[in-house]
C-alpha cells in the first residue's frame, strides 16, 4: 500500500483521498464506524477498504489496535487522518505500531524518491518547515467534505477483531446545528462584541442574506455557550 487513510465515524475524507491519490500508488482506507461510512468511502475513489466492524455500543476508538493491525499488515509510505478526536486516536495507534514520524501541520505532501516531503506549518502557523521524511509518515490533514462518487466502488473487507475495553453507555445532543466551516464560501466571525445571546439573531439574518456561515471566537462557544464548539 502506498497510502492508508484512517476513517472514524464520519466519511469527511474527500481531501485525504485527493492528497493520497496525488502521491501515486495504491490508496487504502480503514474504517472504524458504521458500515454506511465504509460504503461512502469505498465509492470515493480508493482501491481498498477494510471495515472494522464492532457492536453498536462500541466507539471507534476501541478499534485502534485492529486499525493498526490492518495498516501494519500492508505498510505504507504515508498514513493520513482528519482532525477529529477519534481519528487522532486511530492515527496514534497506527503511528506507534509503525514507528512512524508524525506531522500535523502539512500544507503540502509530495514524493522525492524514497522520501516524503512535507511542507509543515509550525508553532501555530507562524512559520513553515520543509521536512524530508524517510520511513513511514503519519499526517493529520483537514479531512475535507464527503468524497464524490467515483465510477465503481472498492470492495469492502470486513474484519472483526477484539475491540479495546470501551463501551458507550449514554449519548446526548447539545442542539447546536453543526456545519463544516471549511467548505463555506463566506464566513462571518463574531466575538464578545455581542452583548447578549439575542444579538446573534441579527448576525443570523445577515448570514442568511449573504449566504454565509457564522464562526465565533472561543469564549462565545466555550464560556458563553451561545454557539457550538465546531464554530
Amino acid at each position: 500500500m502506498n497510502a492508508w487513510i484512517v476513517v472514524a465515524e464520519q466519511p469527511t475524507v474527500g481531501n485525504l483521498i485527493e492528497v493520497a491519490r496525488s502521491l501515486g500508488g495504491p490508496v487504502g482506507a480503514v474504517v472504524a464506524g458504521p458500515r454506511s461510512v465504509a460504503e461512502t468511502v469505498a465509492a470515493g475513489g480508493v482501491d481498498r477498504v477494510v471495515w472494522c466492524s464492532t457492536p453498536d455500543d462500541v466507539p471507534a476508538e476501541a478499534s485502534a489496535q485492529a486499525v493498526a493491525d490492518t495498516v501494519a499488515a500492508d505498510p505504507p509510505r504515508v498514513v493520513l487522518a482528519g482532525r477529529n478526536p477519534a481519528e487522532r486516536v486511530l492515527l496514534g495507534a497506527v503511528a506507534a505500531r509503525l514507528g512512524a514520524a508524525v506531522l500535523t501541520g502539512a500544507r503540502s505532501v509530495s514524493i522525492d524518491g524514497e522520501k516524503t516531503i512535507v511542507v509543515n506549518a509550525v508553532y501555530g502557523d507562524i512559520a513553515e518547515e520543509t521536512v524530508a521524511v524517510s520511513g513511514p509518515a503519519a499526517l493529520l490533514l483537514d479531512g475535507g467534505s464527503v468524497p464524490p462518487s467515483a465510477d465503481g466502488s472498492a470492495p469492502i473487507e470486513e474484519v472483526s477483531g477484539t475491540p479495546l475495553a470501551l463501551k458507550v453507555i449514554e449519548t446526548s445532543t447539545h442542539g447546536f446545528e453543526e456545519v463544516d466551516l471549511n467548505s463555506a464560501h463566506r464566513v462571518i466571525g463574531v466575538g464578545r462584541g455581542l452583548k447578549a445571546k439575542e444579538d446573534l439573531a441579527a448576525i443570523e439574518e445577515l448570514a442568511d442574506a449573504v449566504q454565509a456561515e457564522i464562526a465565533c471566537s472561543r469564549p462565545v462557544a466555550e464560556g458563553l455557550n451561545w454557539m457550538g464548539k465546531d464554530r
Partner: protein
Amino acid sequence: MRIVVTYKWTCDPEESTVRADGTVDWSRAKPGLSTYDPVAIELARRLADEADAELIGLTAGGKGVGAPIATKTALSRGLDRVVVIEDDSLREAGRSELAAVLAAAVRQIGDVTLVITGDSSVDVAAKMVPTVLAGELGWPAVAEVTAVAGQAGALRVERAIPGGAQVLEISGPVVLAASADAAVPHVPGMKELLAAGKKPVDLLALSALKVTPRNAAMTVTGRSRPERKARKGQLIDTADPAAAAAELVAALREVGAL
C-alpha cells in the same frame, strides 16, 4: 492506584518572533506550564482524591524542564511527585519520539493504570502525543474528555462528540486527553507553593529508559515565514445605523465578499 498526568514546560509562541529566514527566535520568551496542562492536573487531582490514588506528574524535554522553577510550578498545581526526563536531544524531538519516551517512562514508573494529558501543548499543539502514547502502551485513548469518575478498571468518562456528548465505560488502562474546558484550574495558594518545594522530584536518565525506536527520520531541509495578509482593520461608525449598513455593504462589495 497510580495516575500519571503528563505536562509540558515550554514557551508560548506568542512571545517569539519569526525571522525573515523562517527561523524562530525564542530569546525573549519565558517558559512556563503549557496553557491547558493545569486543566489536566486539576481533573487528575480530583480523580486521585476520590480514588485515593497517587498522582504523578510526568514530563520529558530539553534542558530546563528539570529545573526547580519548572518542577515546583508543576508540583504546586496538585501533584504528589514528578518524574522528569531532561535531555537536550529531546528539544527537537518529533511527536512520535516524545510519545515513545513518555511511554517508556510510564512503564518504568510501574503499576500505572491511567494516564491523563492536556488537550494540546501551547507551542506545538499537535494533539497527537496522547494518542501515540496510548498506541505505544497498547492502551485505548479517548480525547476531548470533559469529566472522569470512578476507579481504575471501572472508569466513567464523558467526552465531546460532534453534536453533543457521550458517556463511556472504560474497564482497563486508558489514556485520557482532557478537553481545555474540562475543569477550571484553581490558583495554587501559598501553602501549596511552599509544599511543592518539599515534594519528590525523580530525574530519569533518557539512556536508562527502554524507548521503542522509531522507523522514520525527519530532516528539516528548509524554513520560511509565510506571507501574512494584512487585515483591513476597517471600523464603521454606527452612530447612524442606516448609513453604517450602507457603508458595510459597500466595503464588502469592494473586497469582493459580496
